[in-house]
């Protein structure tokens, strides 16, 4: 194992060691996705019972939306909260004076985000299949591309949140929970972009997730893969990620200049 991978693993191990012993922590990861799936699963069952066949496909897109939005949300929170846990335990001082480079810290947080997302979303997917006869894997291999795009968007948002916490300290913490929820209405998670007022549509199309959800509906409703939407999602994600990386680099430098790294979390 090279020194770099070992440093990244070191930071991931710090978080994994906590989960090894604490079942409430593990449970908490799956709690909200499963709860969400229960609410929307029953809602979709109710609509199907009342409206018959037309609601079956609508229900499927609804459940697909719930599950895939959880991918974005859990990826973002998995990364932001892993960083906040370092801050809450007043451990950042030790981490930033170790040989761990800032980009290695970001890679470790991304690694934790993937693990936390999988532990959160997989039980919800299983629930959807077992109780609501909805199998997200039926979408086919393109599902992997949906997952990857949504995870990247989550990481970009999380990196933005981490940057603001680095610079502004605990005051920016609520963004870790709130920011992505604010984007949900514009991301076309449960309804197509065409439903949105025309002046909001440019905002919606600037979000990588919108293209994934439009693509998901195309697969579920028409059985076609919209490569144009997937390409747009990837391109936007690269832009978002580059913007977030730039913000992180600048805020990290600003925090080192202002002394915020010394007092972060206080």
């Amino acid at each position: 194992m090279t020194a770099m991978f070992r440093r990244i693993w070191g930071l991931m191990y710090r978080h994994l060691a906590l989960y090894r012993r604490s079942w409430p922590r593990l449970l908490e990861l799956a709690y909200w996705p499963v709860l969400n799936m229960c609410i929307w699963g029953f809602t979709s069952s109710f609509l199907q019972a009342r409206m018959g066949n037309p609601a079956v496909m609508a229900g499927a897109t609804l459940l697909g939306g719930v599950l895939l939005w959880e991918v974005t949300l859990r990826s973002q929170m998995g990364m932001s909260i892993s960083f906040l846990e370092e801050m809450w335990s007043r451990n950042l001082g030790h981490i930033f004076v170790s040989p761990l480079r800032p980009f290695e810290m970001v890679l470790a947080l991304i690694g934790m985000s993937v693990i936390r997302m999988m532990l959160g979303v997989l039980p919800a997917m299983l629930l959807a299949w077992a109780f609501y006869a909805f199998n997200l894997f039926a979408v086919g291999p393109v599902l992997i591309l949906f997952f990857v795009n949504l995870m990247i968007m989550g990481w970009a948002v999380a990196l933005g949140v981490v940057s603001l916490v680095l610079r502004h300290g605990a005051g920016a913490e609520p963004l870790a929970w709130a920011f992505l929820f604010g984007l949900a209405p514009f991301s076309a998670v449960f309804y197509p972009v065409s439903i949105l007022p025309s002046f909001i549509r440019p905002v919606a199309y600037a979000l990588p997730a919108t293209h994934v959800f439009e693509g998901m509906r195309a697969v579920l409703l028409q059985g076609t893969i919209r490569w144009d939407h997937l390409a747009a999602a990837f391109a936007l994600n690269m832009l978002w990620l580059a913007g977030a990386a730039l913000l992180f680099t600048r805020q990290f430098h600003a925090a080192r200049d202002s002394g915020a790294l010394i007092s972060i979390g206080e």
Partner: protein
Amino acid sequence: MNAIEVENLSKRYGGVHAVNAIGFIVPPGATLGLLGGNGAGKTTTIAMMLGLLIPTSGRISVLGHDMAKNRFAALARMNFSSPYVALPSRLTVRENMEVYGHLYNVKGMNRRIAELARELDLGEILDRPAGQLSAGQKTRVALAKALINRPEVLLLDEPTASLDPDTGDLVRTWLEQYRAESGCTILLASHNMAEVERLCSRVVMLKKGQVVDQGSPDDLLLRYGRKDLEDVFLDIARDRRQAMPA
């Protein structure tokens, strides 16, 4: 080559000089005490030496590495301990050691952890969460973390603050022993003058971000005509007496 070289180092926040054009050198294997009252600039200086804070001007070199250009090469060979920076409280002592063993790429990590556990008497608490330890145990664990990579330069910010005299003495004895065995260079910021007299071969006195005096503890006692460093410290802090000409 000196282990630490600080030249004309300043840190300014707006119009306030937290550290103002200070300079000192620490030869390999020496222990330097950084003394000063609250707000004198000790923690700011240490933060700049660790790369946590960017200096406004000046230069810091640790083990031949310029901290502005190549801090990670130096950070791998140094370490730091402070009672004001915690270790994750829910991880056990062993897990904390493992985390830092990985971060510092320590070869033979388990052997090193066992070695430190034996030397710092951590055997019985290795599998206890760090948050459940007493202040004395936490200090010994923090010291073990600071020594996990066998540092060539060790920065200690008030290493025995909040310890009872017995534990404080054990820590000081252990630091003396470690320095003698490893040839490690130590920079110590402390308010405990007896500790500084015992451990340090040289002392830098800071006041309002400036070096107001420096020398060996014996030199300072002689120059200020005092019997202990505490009185020298008070003379400087309260502007009571100037050093007598050599």
